[in-house]
């Protein structure tokens, strides 16, 4: 009827086209590719055959994910309760340190774990020396190694959701339970734990999905019978097998995406009363204090070690680490080389550049999508929402594989070009993977924005565009910035999809350079690049804090 309705419809069509072209259609292409070999039945039946490699990989992935949920769940929940319900010395410092794993770059981080606990690692060597045994008897290898990495990198999913729930929880509920005659233990079992169920389930779903998608940890700890490794190993040689595995993994991920969405919609426990911050119990008694102190110290030490290892290695001489617990010679050479040779600097420039291109596109898509969904009541919204979040749920390996299949030949969506082997395939993959991050953070900002503000601006004479530019954007700036920085962090560290896609040496980004250096044994050079990733992430986190501080002036309507 009016001009504005027409343009909303046009935007919807444009969004659908983009999502179809770069998200859904590549997935469909992978499915078609899987049928080009032996056909539907022959390709998918083995998943149900206990003795097939496909079934073994699927069981492997599910089993590791299940164990990861348990381990990360126990660690994350305990840490959250410990640091948020009790007060003790240096609690605030631990609270900051406990989120360190988020800053761990994917590839170099896992390598650091490997160098600390794996074959011929620091700890096995130390223990071997102390007990006069063979170091490899003390090494953590195989599935145990993968689990260690998963636990220590994924427990923040539990920690963050449980801590947020504890911070919101209402003292009066606990007091009510006591006043009704419940003992301390009864209160925990019947009141506090049920309230923690939603955040724990949310953490479990995220951990399970991330474990299914995990590629680097199984790769380094040489666990080959998981689905991600199977896809990567067979991508070139047995494309129809790899395609089928990718499709099955995608289906599992989509199921999880739908479960998570449904669960989030159903989460009901909210605080009813206002009031000040929660009171924390101050721990009294020397013993309890010492115990808490030691456990907090130990757990944070474990968390700091991988990052400490990266920085230590960055100052070590290449090939200087043979059979000692730690490298034996140290030098500034890695850093000097980095800042003096343009070749050495190129990966950093590539990573930043590719991430920046991807983020620019992702902002356009993510913000438009978030705004359209928040402000229209169209039936297509749910479909667009799911398509938008799909790449977030898909493992990086699957996203990369889909792109390989879809853009190995000219397509409308690549303007008639073959994208595989060109510079643009990597930013495209980043764009697809990171749009959901910006979409989500913008959506949650928009959800807090009172629609009456826009109506007020319009009634005061502002055109739609003026009101968007001068009222909506300034108020959701924090949300957009949060998403941008998250996406940027992920882009600088990206390894899983990049390793399958990157075109040539000239265009290799950070993670690939690190991988290459590790493969030829130049651990010092690799760690130096890894340290740069950590520093970039930290810089971005600090920046994010500042933006958030400035944008919290806003909402109190």
């Amino acid at each position, binding site marked *: *009827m*009016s001009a*504005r309705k027409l343009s909303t419809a046009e935007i919807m069509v444009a969004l659908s086209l983009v999502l179809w072209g770069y998200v859904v259609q590549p997935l469909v292409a992978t499915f078609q590719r899987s049928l080009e070999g032996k056909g539907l039945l022959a390709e998918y039946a083995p998943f149900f055959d206990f003795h097939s490699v496909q079934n073994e990989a699927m069981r492997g992935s599910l089993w590791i994910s299940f164990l990861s949920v348990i381990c990360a769940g126990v660690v994350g929940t305990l840490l959250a309760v410990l640091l948020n319900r009790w007060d003790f010395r240096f609690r605030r410092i631990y609270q900051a340190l406990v989120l360190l794993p988020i800053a761990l770059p994917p590839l170099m981080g896992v390598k650091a774990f490997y160098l600390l606990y794996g074959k011929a690692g620091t700890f096995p060597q130390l223990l071997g020396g102390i007990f006069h045994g063979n170091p490899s008897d003390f090494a953590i290898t195989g599935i145990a190694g993968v689990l260690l990495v998963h636990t220590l990198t994924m427990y923040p999913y539990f920690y963050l959701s449980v801590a947020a729930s504890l911070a919101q929880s209402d003292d009066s509920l606990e007091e009510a339970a006591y006043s009704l005659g419940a003992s301390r233990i009864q209160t925990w079992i019947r009141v506090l734990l049920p309230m923690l169920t939603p955040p724990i389930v949310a953490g479990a779903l995220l951990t399970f999905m991330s474990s299914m998608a995990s590629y680097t940890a199984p790769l380094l700890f040489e666990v080959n019978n998981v689905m991600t490794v199977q896809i990567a190993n067979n991508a070139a040689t047995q494309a129809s097998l790899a395609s089928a595995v990718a499709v099955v993994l995608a289906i599992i991920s989509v199921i999880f995406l739908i479960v998570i969405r449904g669960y989030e919609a159903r989460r009901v426990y909210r605080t009813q009363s206002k009031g000040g911050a929660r009171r924390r119990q101050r721990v009294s008694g020397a013993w309890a204090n010492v115990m808490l102190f030691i456990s907090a110290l130990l757990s944070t030490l474990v968390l700091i070690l991988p990052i400490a290892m990266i920085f230590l290695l960055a100052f070590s001489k290449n090939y200087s680490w043979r059979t000692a617990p730690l490298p034996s010679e140290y030098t500034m050479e890695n850093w000097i080389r980095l800042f003096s040779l343009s070749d050495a600097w190129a990966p950093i420039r590539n990573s930043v550049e590719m991430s920046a291109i991807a983020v620019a596109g992702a902002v356009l898509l993510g913000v438009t999508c978030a705004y359209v969904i928040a402000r229209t009541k169209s039936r297509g919204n749910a479909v667009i929402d799911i398509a938008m979040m799909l790449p977030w749920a898909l493992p990086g390996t699957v996203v990369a594989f889909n792109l390989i299949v879809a853009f190995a030949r000219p397509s409308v969506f690549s303007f008639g070009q073959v994208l595989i082997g060109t510079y643009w395939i990597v930013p495209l993959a980043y764009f697809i993977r990171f749009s959901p991050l910006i979409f989500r953070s913008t959506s949650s900002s928009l959800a807090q924005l*009172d629609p*009456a*503000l826009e*109506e*007020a*601006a*319009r*009634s*005061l*004479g*502002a*055109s*739609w565009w*003026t*009101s968007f530019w*001068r*009222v909506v954007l*300034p*108020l959701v700036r924090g949300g957009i910035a949060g998403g941008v920085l998250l996406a940027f962090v992920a882009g600088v560290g990206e390894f899983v999809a990049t390793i399958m896609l990157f075109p040539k040496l000239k265009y290799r980004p950070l993670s690939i350079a690190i991988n290459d250096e590790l493969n030829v044994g130049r651990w010092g050079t690799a760690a130096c690049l890894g340290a740069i990733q950590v520093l970039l992430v930290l810089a971005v986190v600090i920046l994010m804090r500042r933006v958030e501080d400035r944008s919290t*002036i*806003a*909402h*109190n*309507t």
Partner: protein
Amino acid sequence: MTVLTLEALSKFFQRAGLVVDAVNLRIEDGEFFTLLGPSGCGKSTILRMIAGLEEPTSGRILFGDRDVTFAPPNQRGIGLVFQNYALFPHLTVARNVAFGLEVRKLSSDEITKRVTAALAQVQLEKLGQARVDQLSGGQQQRVALARALVIRPQFLLLDEPLSNLDAMLRGETRTMLRAVHNESEVTTIYVTHDQEEALGMSDRIAVLSGGRIHQVADPKDIYERPATRFVASFIGRNNAIEATVIRLQNDMVTIQFANRSELTVNTKQRAPGVELAAGAKVVACIRAESLCLSANGQIDGTLSDIEYSGSGFACIVKSNLGNLKIEVPMSVQLPSRGETVHLSMSAAAVHLVQP
């Protein structure tokens, strides 16, 4: 100057159904006009359609001769005050007020001048540089009003502007709104569910229920001559008693209640459309304050509930005509709860409506 006309305006929502049902209204220039009704009666939807925030399903909206039915809100020249004020949290008080002038691209001298004047009008001249979240609810309300008035709108639309204020502030703000209206002479359309606000402030009131207009009249007529049973029950403490017409002589009509008592009233004391042939069913409306305790009253009952109201007592009497609300002034000796009482009604206070 401008007259606002609504012609057969309707709005249909997928979920809620027909919220506004063929509403016709003519709001005169300079009027303080109130849309009054319970929540869900469609009054806010009408306001939002006038503002251009909703599109009507059918019907027309005219500002003077100009058809604005589908004009975007920014081309209507209206000032809108929201229930929750909708102040821009990222702008200072002065920048909030300046917003409408800035988008009109006025010179900065002119903007400064008009913003200062607008803030003075609502007694906030000192808070121009304050952040919006530093203000109290009452102050935010006044900023919202200044922001709407500063653009010199053709119509000032207020959507339940007092509902988030406490009782004392509400009184003060009412006085201020009247003063602002008198001074600026801007046609004001006020939406509320509070009959006291409506009666106290308006030049005319439209009472709505279920998307339809039940009555448009000045406050005195609304109170004393309700057009329908709904209006009678929505405004004030009112009793609706069913009765049957037994005699019509000249301009006097005699009705009989369920307890066989009879009452003769003037035929003028009825809403339009009430049929007065013998045997016709009518509803007699009588305000709580017009029912008196009297030893020889024709209505018998027992006093079942007493509430002290400051100026007197608000009571409920269980009578042979159903539960009746009465008001007893302090000067009258009040029987205690459970005692038998007799009530009389003065014929002049009765108003007949359709059942």
